[in-house]
């Protein structure tokens, strides 16, 4: 798990993730006739490797790190709003200490980081419902059993490797009685992903959540999550 309230330098990505250059310019037709055989050769070689390897991993140079990397989540508190009556009834609301707010934000970031690692990185739990109890409130977890949970990563997909990118989480905190009682959170989590059948691309989860104190920690009580994955074909649903 890698939750943090501090900014960290972005991890450099393997060269193999870089996009191939696109041919262009005045010699387009000629280049196309160079490009077509070259692409065919590459595809044929790729197919041969897959067939000969009988489903085993290709060379390490083209694969992302197996599972050593984790999501590095940094959090920024954008607003702190009290929900105590704002002097309307003749008393001033207690003000939450900055330390209390920062601690809550850090705890929420840690919950999100733990969920992201479990949902998308850890080979033991990724793309299953195992990570959900550590993310969702009891109410949301019970509600989720009747809902489509694919946006949270409960997707039937076989994965060869995942390379997570740093996540910037923003949180708007609501306080009452000097404590944080609600937090509106949003983030975009991205990772390079290679499926078992070789499809590669960007995993992207865009999430907006409301966190509440629940069961001694922070849990998401309201969730809107959109997940995009490279298609693998048969394994997807």
């Amino acid at each position, binding site marked *: 798990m890698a939750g943090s309230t501090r900014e960290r330098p972005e991890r450099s990505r393997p060269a193999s993730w870089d996009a191939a250059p696109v041919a262009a310019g005045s010699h387009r037709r000629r280049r196309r006739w160079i490009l077509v055989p070259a692409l065919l050769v590459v595809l044929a070689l790729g197919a041969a490797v897959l067939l000969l390897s009988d489903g085993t991993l290709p060379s390490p140079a083209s694969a992302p790190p197996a599972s050593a990397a984790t999501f590095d989540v940094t959090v920024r508190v954008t607003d702190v709003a009290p929900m105590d*009556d704002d002097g309307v009834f003749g008393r001033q609301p207690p003000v939450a200490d900055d330390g209390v707010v920062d601690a809550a934000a850090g705890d929420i970031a840690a919950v999100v980081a733990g969920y992201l690692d479990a949902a998308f990185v850890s080979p033991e739990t990724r793309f299953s419902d195992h990570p959900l109890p550590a993310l969702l409130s009891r109410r949301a977890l019970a509600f989720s059993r009747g809902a489509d949970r694919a946006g949270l990563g409960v997707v039937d997909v076989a994965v060869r490797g995942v390379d997570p990118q740093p996540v910037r989480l923003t949180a708007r905190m609501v306080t009452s009685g000097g404590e944080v009682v609600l937090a509106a959170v949003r983030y975009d989590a991205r990772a390079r992903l290679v499926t078992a059948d070789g499809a590669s691309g960007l995993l992207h989860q865009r999430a*907006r959540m409301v966190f509440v104190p629940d069961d001694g920690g922070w849990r998401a009580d309201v969730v809107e999550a959109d997940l995009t994955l490279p298609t693998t074909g048969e394994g997807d649903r």
Partner: protein
Amino acid sequence: MSHRTRRTGVGVVLAMLLLGALAVSTYRTVLRPAYADDGILVVLVVGSDVGPPYRPGDPLRGRADAIHLVAVDIGARRATVVDIPRDSVIGGTKVNAHLATGGPDALVSQLESFTGLTIDHWVLTTFRGFERLTAELGGADVVADEPMHDDSSGSDFEPGPVHVEGATALAFARDRHSLSDGDFGRTRHQGDLLLALHRRVAAQRPGPGELVDLVATVGRTTVSDVPRRDLLPLALLATDIGPGAVHHVPLTGRTATLGSASVVYVEPGDTFVHIADGQVGPPATSSD
């Protein structure tokens, strides 16, 4: 096969292979677990005439200038809003006096006896609280059904649709002198404002961030006996109810005097019987 045809075929195959390699699947999850699963929830909404800065004092011991019962069929996502004139005789005196003498719990007790309903929660605001509530929610679109020009409340509306927020919303809610049906009309206007605020909030179908704003706004501008942990699920419930699923029942009755006071004897008919039976929301039409 011509060169041109062969080139086209190669191009199509390549395009299919490349598209296959780049294809993505998208998934969406929305979890909005609202308050409970079934049953009827009844909430008493009160506007107190005491509270700083306009009338310093304890708003929980003021007179109830606005009294509304909001009954919600939780499972069906339907609601009925009943307006009770403040001058109604309930419990042997004007109903608004029960707040001053015994606080919200006394008012709840009297209304439970009168209506036969169990009131689950009460929510109370003040003049200032209502001003801020309407302003922070973006105002309310209501209709002035007759000219409203009253120095006492500050109302200044020509007949027709009006957008009110802050001080103008409070003036619209307080004016009874301009209205031909006096306290009945004022109470009806207060109910109109409640429904208009609900329309505004529900129409936005607020997402997680907006829900937090809504809960914080209501928290800042009201006091209630709602447990803090229930505020978010209640906000979800309220925003899940479509504006068309809310029935508005302004109670009327006959006016009289009690001692030296002008009072109202309300005639609720079957209103509370229907709510107790679970008939909440707009009545079914013949086509239903």
